[in-house]
């Protein structure tokens, strides 16, 4: 007994703050439980797994709220549980709940067996949470992989559709290149600074008094940026985005479009605005150039698309450029603007993708723009959310998209990047071309005869298909809640501002 106590006193096991870790534990437990329940037989599994998944995400949000306003270092400095982590966790979980609802009755979840599908979704969210909480390069990479690998699988869950498999494979290959680049960059940063810890890196850079000449560190930063740019689909590393988005099952696309982007931007914010903030003068011009290219490439690319999913993919690329703006200036204002816009972006895109999901179940595989013709007359319940989402993405006032852009421009001008604000505005002008085309298609064109008469285009005409002609309530709910949030946050943005301000304050190294 005496010996044991002695041993315990000497062995310095890392202190683990279970309260701070609780949301992560909840996600892990929920993911495993979902997987296990998925093994059971019976039709009830179809509904039990998504329910459990939503409950898990709800629990994670609840625990996050409980831990809000407490800054704790977890697992001896591997992660930091602060308001930025929790705010982003809310965003991921929100996106996860949306995606779960969209996938509830999707073909993807049935073909891949619902247990595995929703479990992978939860693991991916866990990875995102770890990624943005990471304050150590090793944890960062761990989170990055945990986020990516389930997504590769999820993209390929429509097992009998070639495009889905192709999309999964493409994402796997491109994603692996991204991961490899990232890990190489992280290694170089470690080599240059002698520390994997964010605080240590920051200390080394500050002590070195600027790194203009340190080639090792600069290449490390560059490679890390490239690795993360792949994930955030920042141009010129965005080429995979339209193909993967188009091929993947739409609920998964929706999840990737909002949550993965939020995670990638979150980690950029944490890494560049805390660990590497000392060399901001070196990386900011590089990042600004990337953001400008991204905005232009994304918006111009979207102009020519006829598939709504591809269009949203390119629009997502452009929006990633807007979001980068807040990281570049490395100010509190910028961090807040990015967080604010991330949440807004989530709502806008969820609304749009929910409508795509609803239409796809009627029109078969087609997400072609033409299949949305006359939607304003035939299904106003679907047309309104999509209209609101498009106008908000374009930045029309009275939507949260407008406030978000004002916030970003504010941060840019304040951080002496007025030229990038002009690029952002020019990008928004180009974007009007394609966002308004969707609106025009819905409201100003006649519905094709087949849909107008209520007969679904897909052959068969079975009862199931007839039932599918009306959008499922949960899909409709996602569309309307997201669209309503877009409007409400555009008129009463103060609550979200407060949340973003809390998240921004967590990055204590910038002003």
């Amino acid at each position, binding site marked *: 007994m005496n010996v044991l106590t002695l041993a315990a006193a000497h062995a310095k096991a890392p202190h683990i703050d279970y309260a701070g870790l609780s949301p992560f534990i909840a996600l892990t437990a929920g993911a495993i439980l979902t997987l296990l329940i998925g093994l059971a037989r019976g039709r009830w599994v179809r509904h039990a797994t998504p329910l459990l998944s939503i409950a898990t995400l709800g629990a994670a949000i609840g625990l996050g709220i409980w831990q809000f306003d407490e800054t704790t270092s977890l697992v001896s400095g591997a992660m930091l549980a602060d308001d930025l982590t929790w705010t982003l966790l809310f965003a991921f979980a929100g996106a996860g709940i949306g995606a779960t609802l969209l996938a509830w009755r999707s073909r993807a979840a049935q073909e891949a067996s619902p247990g595995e599908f929703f479990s992978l979704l939860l693991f991916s969210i866990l990875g995102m949470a770890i990624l943005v909480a990471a304050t150590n390069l090793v944890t960062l990479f761990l989170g990055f992989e945990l986020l990516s690998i389930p997504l590769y699988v999820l993209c390929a869950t429509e097992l009998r559709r070639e495009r889905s498999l192709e999309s999964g494979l493409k994402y796997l290959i491109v994603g692996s290149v991204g991961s490899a680049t990232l890990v190489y960059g992280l290694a170089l940063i470690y080599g240059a600074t002698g520390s994997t810890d964010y605080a240590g890196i920051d200390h080394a850079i500050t002590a070195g008094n600027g790194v203009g000449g340190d080639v090792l560190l600069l290449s490390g930063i560059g490679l890390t940026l490239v690795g993360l740019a792949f994930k955030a689909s920042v141009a010129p590393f965005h080429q995979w985005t339209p193909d993967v988005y188009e091929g993947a099952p739409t609920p998964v696309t929706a999840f990737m479009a909002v949550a993965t982007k939020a995670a990638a931007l979150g980690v950029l914010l944490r890494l560049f605005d805390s660990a590497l903030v000392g060399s901001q003068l070196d990386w900011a011009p590089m990042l600004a150039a990337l953001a400008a290219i991204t905005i232009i490439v994304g918006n111009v690319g979207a102009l020519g698309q006829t598939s709504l999913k591809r269009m949203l993919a390119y629009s997502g690329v452009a929006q990633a450029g807007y979001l980068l703006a807040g990281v570049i200036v490395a100010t509190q204002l910028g961090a807040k603007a990015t967080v604010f816009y991330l949440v807004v972006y989530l709502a806008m895109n969820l609304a749009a993708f929910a409508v795509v999901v609803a239409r796809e179940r009627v029109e078969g595989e087609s997400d072609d723009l033409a299949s949305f013709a006359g939607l304003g007359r035939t299904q106003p319940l679907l047309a309104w959310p999509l209209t609101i989402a498009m*106008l908000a993405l374009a930045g029309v006032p009275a939507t949260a998209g407008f406030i978000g852009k004002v916030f970003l421009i504010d941060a840019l001008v304040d951080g002496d990047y007025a030229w990038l604000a002009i690029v952002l505005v020019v990008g928004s002008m180009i974007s009007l071309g394609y966002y*308004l085309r969707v609106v*025009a298609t819905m409201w100003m064109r006649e519905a094709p005869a087949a849909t107008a008469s209520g007969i679904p285009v897909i052959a068969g005409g079975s009862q199931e298909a007839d039932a599918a002609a009306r959008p499922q309530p949960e899909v409709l709910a996602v569309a309307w809640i997201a669209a309503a949030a877009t409007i409400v946050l555009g008129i009463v943005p103060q609550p979200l501002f407060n949340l973003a301000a809390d998240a921004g304050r967590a990055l204590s190294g910038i002003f």
Partner: protein
Amino acid sequence: MTLSILIWLPLVVAVLCALAPRVAPRLALLGALATLAIAISFVVRFDSGHGMQFVTDRSWISALGISYSLGLDGLNLVLVLLSTVLFAGATLMANLRADWERPGQFYLWLLASETFVLGAFCAQDLILFVAFFDLMLIPFYFLTGIWGAGERPERVRATTKLVIYTLVGSLLMLAAAVATGVLTAQQHDADLTFSLAALARTPLSTGSQEWIFLCFAAAFLVKMPAFPLHGWLPDGYRTMPLPALSAFSGVVSKVAAYGFLRIVLPVFPDASVHFQELLLLIAVASILYGSAMAFSTTNARLVVGFSSVAQMGFITLGIFALNQDGVQGALLQMVNHGLVTLPLFFIVGLLAARAGGSEDLRDMGGIAFRAPVLASLFLIVGLATLAMPGSANFVGEFLILLGVFKAKVVFAFVAAVGVAMASVYVLRAFIRAMHNRVGPSVDSREVGFGDLAVLAPMVLVILALALYPQFGLKRSEAAAQAAVAKVGPEINIIR
């Protein structure tokens, strides 16, 4: 009663219209008239001696220094009244045609645009103004795209062109507006605010003012529209449904001109002086180009449309005379132009109905024989448009030219040519439509009571203003003086 009620009432009625499409036409008319009544009550209670009145000022987004701030002074009082008059007229016009598809949505957008226009006129916060200014366009996008004239693809193209042209300007303005607030806060080491009064007190450095000025000018000149930024006008005007068009041409262009007076002159005084000649040049070019196009086109709508370009040119000219005479003339002319635009477009509709549905002047002719009342009403409105001495338009143009004459003589001489040209295009349109040989498919008849209900009040208002132009001048005097206080060379009191 606060200004918020005035602004938001139309939107509330609009939503009700959408929910109850059956009673939408009557409900919308009632809403528009109620808004007019509220506006009149504000004009009655307005005290010409004081500055900003009926102020509402609440913090909206405190983190960004944006406030929900409204107020009326001499600059916008009469324009608010004008908007409510024109929207009431436009709603009545729409009521006369019963066969709108999906009437609920039609009136939703028509009245929603009234809210946004009134909001833009009343806003005393830069971001709030920009928000309303951008929002103004959305209703017209739907109104044109869904209920416009012409073939569908053509219509959609025209609509998209309209929106992209005008939003390009608006978005530049958004960036410029945010920059104004942030840079002012930086340069004066003050808290971030977008309050127009506060921004006017703390001017930016000249260098920042200049690029910001250009962004604002682009937005406003596109919206007016001014030559050479008028590319959306022919298609847009040809397709827009008439009630929407008369509101658009009558009011929305005025918001742009008003923006110069409310924002550009007080907040960017150095840049306004610096770019004075550029803007005067654009104004004169608009006058000449608009007039030339108006007497060469044969489409009756476009005659009115291009005459608007010329008239907006006069208004810009008056504003950038940068003295009190010019500004007061411009303000009066804004009201005059708004008042003649709606009846003119309405008459175009009546003429088209009598010429077998064609809006081409060549298909008209001889309509006056069977419709003397219509002809006389047209003539009154027409003479007002060409600024016949005795009309309020004459007073307006006279003041504008007087102002420019004091500031830059050369521009005044060239612009004076425009006055003569106006009589050419107005009389040409009148003669071609009303007299001449009777057109092949013309089936003339007198105006009905419904039509008179729109035309007669408008003509009466025009006549009343002709007899008593001081109605507007008196109320705007102090505000006009204040608007040019920082840019004008001298202060002169002419009355």
